[in-house]
């Protein structure tokens, strides 16, 4: 087997890595945003529940949570390892994304919300048209960080048998006995994915930035 075959075998796992990320990240964003809105605007009880959710999910290693959620989910419904793994990672990420969105909401809220209500906007309108658009912009840098983490954590679904990059690196490493090369190849692919994503989000941040004079 020559090197290009070797590399392309590992790289073909990228489809799964990207797939897992593209499910986990938006799922985490959706859940995280809803939970953050409940946290900030939902009153004391909701805030407590959300705080608990966040503390628990962030206090357990992602791999352990992945196994728990995987076995809990697949007991009830028949899901492939790929879907179960992706959604579980999304749940894990939702706790972190909730904190990101919450932080952004809190730093915009207050005065801006008051100004919007003073004009006559309802609470919901004020959040929708004044707070959220500004919070999104604030959230991009920390969110970019979380995106990088999710890409890297997507390697965890390897433990469920999903043939993503790391899993393939391990397989071909074992069969060819060229472990170092296999893992180095995997590392390079992960790095490129993270790098490209970060650059893309950086670009988005610039593009969405609100014009101002220095």
């Amino acid at each position, binding site marked *: 087997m020559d090197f290009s075959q070797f590399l392309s075998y590992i790289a073909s796992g990228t489809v799964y890595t990207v797939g897992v990320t593209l499910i986990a990240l938006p799922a985490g964003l959706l859940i995280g945003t809803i939970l953050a809105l409940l946290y900030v605007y939902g009153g004391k009880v909701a805030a407590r529940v959300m705080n608990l959710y966040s503390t628990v999910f962030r206090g357990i290693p992602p791999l352990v949570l992945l196994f728990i959620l995987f076995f809990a989910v697949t007991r009830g419904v028949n899901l492939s390892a790929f879907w179960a793994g992706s959604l579980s990672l999304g749940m894990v990420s939702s706790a972190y994304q909730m904190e990101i969105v919450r932080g952004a909401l809190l730093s915009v809220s207050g*005065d*801006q919300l*008051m*100004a*919007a*209500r*003073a*004009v*006559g*906007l*309802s609470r919901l*309108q004020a959040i929708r*048209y*004044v707070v959220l*658009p*500004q919070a999104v*912009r604030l959230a991009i840098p920390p969110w970019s960080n979380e995106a990088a983490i999710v890409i890297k954590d997507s390697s965890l679904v390897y433990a469920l048998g999903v043939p993503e990059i790391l899993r393939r690196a391990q397989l071909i490493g074992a069969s060819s006995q060229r472990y170092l090369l296999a893992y180095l190849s995997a590392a390079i692919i992960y790095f490129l994915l993270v790098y490209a994503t970060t650059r893309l989000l950086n670009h988005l941040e610039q593009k969405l930035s*609100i*014009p*101002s*004079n220095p």
Partner: protein
Amino acid sequence: MPKPILTIKNLTKIYGQNVIFQNLNLTVNEGDTVVIIGPSGTGKSTLLRCINLLTRPNEGQIWLDDLEITAKGTDEDQVRQHIGMVFQNFLLFNHLTALGNVKLGLTKVKKMSEEEATKKAMHELSRVGLADRANHYPGQLSGGQQQRVGIARALAMDPRVMLFDEPTSALDPELIGEVLEVMRKLALDGMTMVVVTHEMGFAREVADRIVFMEKGHIVEEGSPDEMFNHPKFDRTREFLWKITELYGKKEKEAE
């Protein structure tokens, strides 16, 4: 016969254990400019926020025209669009242009069409002399310009009364004049205004009534002539003397 627009009766506001004001009474007549002065921490901002229902008073009533807005079941959003508010720190929506700031209430609250709202918003921006800055974001405007956009944003809703909470105290001295000029014009146009300010020149010239508040009480109120030239209480005289001295100096420096 003057017609009251704003009637405040026995208003009490308590934060925790802290009584901000108690049994406060105030009437604002149509077309009047009432200037409220008083040391900081006296409850002036809190009073304005109560009027605008941004915070709820513990007791007492407020009427806007004939409607008791403190009554249970009042549609707060409905009330607020009839009361304009201008803040010390401008509080423009940072992600929207000057035009966007003025338009938001028109499209979302008044449900105007995009076109109608743009027309109305441009009209309001010209009223404050900023039509040429319509497409600038708050971060691209000077403090004075931001505050004028803030005024235009409130005016656009065609409020019955405008509340100003120290509209010039966050501004550099050289930018105060342009904002006061807009407010002076508004008063001349017959807008009903409640203005918390320490700009004594403005108070003297524009106010129909000056209200001196201290520690949650209205110590004294009267026409500028009464307040400046023969106040009933020493406290009033002392306070007026102090701020005229203080702010007068600042004005001089600005020249």
